[in-house]
């Protein structure tokens, strides 16, 4: 069984040196990989990037991350990404990566994602230019993520985002905020592409556990929701939540 640790919304800053790392003291015993679901810094400044890199340097398991909206605040996301790459963190933005863990191939696709809303209460690319830009941002990032997921021919496939893919893990947030907290497009692509687990952050007042319409588990790992340094999810290769009897992924040879 793969043990996938995950956390988001840790908001590292110059005032939090050592906080994040101290929570990872038992990581090697508890997990095979660590996923970071965005909002890794307070405001995406270079000084914060340096602190974050120091917290993550030489951790005992592979780390895969996406950025969040806080990480974009200072418009230095490329430098932040490079700092993370420099310490061995794989950073996804409409892209994917593959890890081999004790003979099991784990594919992770993802990106920050964006807002837009959920079925019945959703932004559409109609009207003013500004509205089209807003709605198209989610569509473009979802298209890139779907392409990344479909490139993965692995035993297990995980979608990692910052913004939420379903309403279910937003329960506890003000419903008026839902359209700003995620987009149904990410759940739709996951259901269509048959991923095994979706991990996201962003919704501090939300709920940890939910599922897509097809039954794919969705986990909101924002640290204020988890109230622990990270969650650990066990995934059995070959046991797919989306699978009906006899069904195989159309675009992959495994499963």
């Amino acid at each position, binding site marked *: *069984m793969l*043990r996938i640790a995950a956390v988001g*919304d*840790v*908001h*590292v*800053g110059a*005032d*939090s040196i050592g*906080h994040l790392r101290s*929570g990872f*003291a*038992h990581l090697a015993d*508890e997990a095979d990989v660590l996923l970071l679901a965005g909002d890794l810094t*307070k*405001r995406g400044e270079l000084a914060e990037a340096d602190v974050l890199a120091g917290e993550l340097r030489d951790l005992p398991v592979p780390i895969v991350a996406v950025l969040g909206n*806080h990480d974009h*605040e200072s418009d230095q996301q490329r430098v932040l990404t490079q700092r993370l790459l420099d310490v061995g963190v794989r950073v996804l933005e409409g892209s994917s990566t593959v890890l081999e863990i004790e003979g099991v191939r784990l594919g992770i696709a993802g990106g920050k994602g964006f807002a837009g809303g959920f079925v019945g209460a959703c932004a559409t690319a109609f009207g003013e230019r500004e509205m089209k830009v807003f709605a198209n941002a989610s569509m473009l990032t979802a298209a890139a993520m779907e392409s990344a997921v479909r490139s993965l021919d692995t035993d297990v496939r995980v979608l990692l985002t910052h913004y939420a893919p379903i309403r279910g893990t937003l329960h506890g947030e003000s419903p008026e905020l839902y359209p700003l907290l995620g987009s149904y497009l990410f759940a739709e692509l996951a259901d269509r592409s048959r991923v*095994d*687990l979706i991990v996201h952050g962003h919704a*501090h*007042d939300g709920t940890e556990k939910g599922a897509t319409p097809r039954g794919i*588990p969705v*986990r909101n790992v924002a*640290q*204020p929701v*988890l*109230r*622990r*340094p*990270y*969650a*650990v*999810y*066990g*995934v*059995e290769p070959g046991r797919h*939540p989306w699978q009906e009897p006899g069904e195989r992924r159309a675009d992959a040879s495994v499963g």
Partner: protein
Amino acid sequence: MSAEADPFLAEHIHEALSRDQRVNAPELRITVEHGYVHIDGIVATEDRKRAIADVVGERWAALTLDDRTTVADFPPDGRIEVV
């Protein structure tokens, strides 16, 4: 208009706590009533919790702050959920 009579005050405070670089916490929940500003949520550090009081005090000194925020300091629990 007094601070308390401003029906949009909670959102002005939300905006300030989102944008002020000492805090940058748009996720906080804010309500204003009867001269109190109630702020709830989780912040990453003690410095940021103190900064909430600074920001509110600097701009809305007439209000009494009811700071219900907690600082993220969560122990591990060793749980694993099979999904």
